[in-house]
């Protein structure tokens, strides 16, 4: 078969272009400028790749949203090539563990960023993704998407991103998002559940289901430019309290399907806590009056995605990753004034004021 570019279909010979890289992977000790390079490579091509005539080898993948056909090597070779530069920061065994994992991601705002980092890393050869929403312009401050995709379901944008990076990935799509009647189907058999949904009821219900099924939950939450990661190891600790026990389980269990604003805010407050950045505190107080929704930055979404990907890797590779909350602070690392005593004192004062205002607006937590 000889494929040519035509006016409506584009052809990319990724396999042919990869042969040099593949040889370098098999023979890293033969420098391209070495006199033996050509003869060694010639024999390798002859023995491994049909003398370089590879038209009938590998696979041809069609990307309808790009109207593009790409010639690729087989799955193992592709995977080896695509993750070659991970070595030995990620060992071969870890890479296999990562790619062998099934990861579910629900909520594709921060979730899309997490998915992007995970798939880039060559983790999660098998994915389940869930979101009911479509892309809007207001998402484009934090989602790696395009204005061309406005109105497209976020699951479809996620799918395209996955297949763009790994056409061999197995993806199961829940384009209506998660719901009571599909939670178990989404969660069963997952190695890790990445929970990034906005819906407070589903955040709670999915955790009860994950705990029942022994699936670990990872969630990253934006906090200004920063983030924090919550890890709940229901695979290792079947009795571990939901949300680390920050809210009593009887209150969580009684959360209605459509909680009132007050119920929603109070639960979110209990889950997140009040140790958030001053601008986050100010913004939260303006939600519903001067702001339409909880603010989220692209920096934080990207940072959260990286943090989730890192956390998932540690879990699937069997490294220590205990239940708990892990703050990741750009402010702490990069703002030299952040830890100065006057800054700390100011934040403490602001947090106390925020707390007071919050309680006035939404009722004290122990009311």
């Amino acid at each position: 078969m000889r494929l040519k570019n035509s006016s409506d279909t584009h052809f990319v010979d990724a396999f042919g272009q990869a042969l040099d890289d593949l040889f370098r992977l098999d023979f890293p000790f033969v420098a391209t400028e070495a006199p033996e390079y050509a003869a060694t490579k010639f024999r390798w091509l002859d023995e491994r790749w049909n003398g370089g005539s590879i038209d009938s080898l590998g696979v041809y993948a069609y990307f309808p949203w790009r109207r593009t056909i790409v010639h690729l090597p087989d799955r193992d070779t592709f995977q080896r090539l695509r993750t070659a530069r991970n070595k030995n920061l990620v060992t071969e065994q870890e890479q296999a563990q990562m790619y062998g994992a099934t990861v579910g991601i629900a909520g594709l705002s921060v979730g899309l960023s997490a998915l992007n980092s995970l798939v880039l890393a060559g983790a999660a050869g098998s994915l389940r993704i869930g979101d009911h929403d479509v892309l809007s312009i207001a998402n484009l401050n934090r989602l790696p998407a395009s204005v061309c995709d406005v109105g497209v379901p976020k699951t479809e944008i996620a799918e395209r991103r996955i297949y763009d990076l790994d056409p061999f990935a197995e993806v199961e799509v829940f384009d209506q998002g998660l719901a009571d009647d599909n939670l178990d189907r989404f969660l069963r058999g997952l190695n890790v559940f990445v929970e990034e949904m906005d819906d407070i009821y589903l955040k709670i219900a999915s955790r009860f289901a994950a705990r029942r099924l022994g699936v670990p939950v990872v969630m990253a939450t934006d906090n200004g430019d920063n983030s924090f990661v919550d890890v709940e190891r229901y695979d290792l600790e079947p009795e571990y309290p939901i949300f680390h026990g920050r809210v009593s389980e009887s209150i969580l269990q009684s959360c209605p399907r459509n909680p009132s604003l007050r119920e929603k805010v109070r639960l979110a407050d209990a889950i997140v806590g009040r140790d958030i950045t001053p601008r986050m505190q100010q913004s939260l107080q303006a939600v519903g009056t001067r702001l339409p929704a909880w603010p989220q930055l692209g920096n934080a979404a990207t940072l959260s995605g990286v943090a989730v990907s890192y956390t998932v890797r540690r879990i699937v590779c069997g490294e220590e990753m205990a239940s708990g909350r892990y703050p990741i602070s750009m402010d702490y690392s990069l703002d030299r004034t952040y830890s100065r005593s006057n800054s700390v004192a100011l934040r403490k004062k602001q947090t106390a004021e925020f707390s007071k205002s919050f309680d006035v607006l939404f009722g004290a937590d122990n009311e």
Partner: protein
Amino acid sequence: MNNSDRAIEQAINDALLAASLAPSAHNTQPWAYIREGNLIRVLRSIERTLGVGDPTTREACLSIGMFIKCFELSIADSGYSAEVTVPFSLVADLEVAFIEVTGDPSGTSPGNPDPSHLLDVLQRRQTNRGLYEPSEDVEWLDGWKCQSEDVELFSFTTDDDKSMLADLVGQGVRLALSLPAMRDELASLVHWKSEPFEIGMPLEAMSGIEEINVAAPKAFLASADPKSEELALAERYRSAPVIVVLSTVRDDPQSWIETGRECARILLRAAQDNLAHCIAAGPIEIPTLAPLVRAATGSELRPQLLFRVGRPLESNFSVKSPRIPWRELEIAEGHLA
């Protein structure tokens, strides 16, 4: 089993014994095999491939080439033929060669009239890391014809040439002994000759020191000074009658095995004259030194093996190296992974 079966069985067993006596990198004996009737599947042993000193598996493949050549010579001595196939393989591949034993020796005797002769030569073959007699005549190396078209031999007998290569050998050992991981790996391979062991080297033959009441690895680490070893080894290479470099057109496991086969022919020819040898991996394996060896050969071919041959002057550097009994080299198919 009829007489003919018994004869071929005996020939194969003899050949496996002969092969097991082949030289190898630091006496690691990185070979193993699976036997299927008259077919021997030759494998590289992962656990006996050096982790630090042999990052590409070149040293293991060179050793396996020598294993194969010793097998071939023994089979020929028994009057059979061994058809050796060295397929293309990658560094990660474990199955690196096949040997099919064929022929009926009755009536024809293409082999050596005295089958014990080869074993005798094999057992006389010796590594010696000490000084050699400089005036030894090694004319038989002139015009040596390599059996593989991929392999070429370069021999150096002038003082200038030997001095240049000896310096590289010295630098190689200095660099190797300066690397903590390499020192630890080498230390893990040394023993006192009075100790029972199957792989590795007696420290007495490596360093010329006498046994003391300290574990051999510890004694090695205490005594292996990079600079003094550099000077000593360079001097020993300089004094050898000849330094040989085997180079290849390609640089892959197939070429390494072919080089090992060629090397075994040379070393056994030397053993016939009771000459010893000493192989230096440093200048081949250290990326900054290999181009200098290549330049010394005046050829574009990739140097794969560098060694000296000669009549040893210091018998304390020559100690019989122990072996894994050949029957224990056989592995079950299921263990291949």
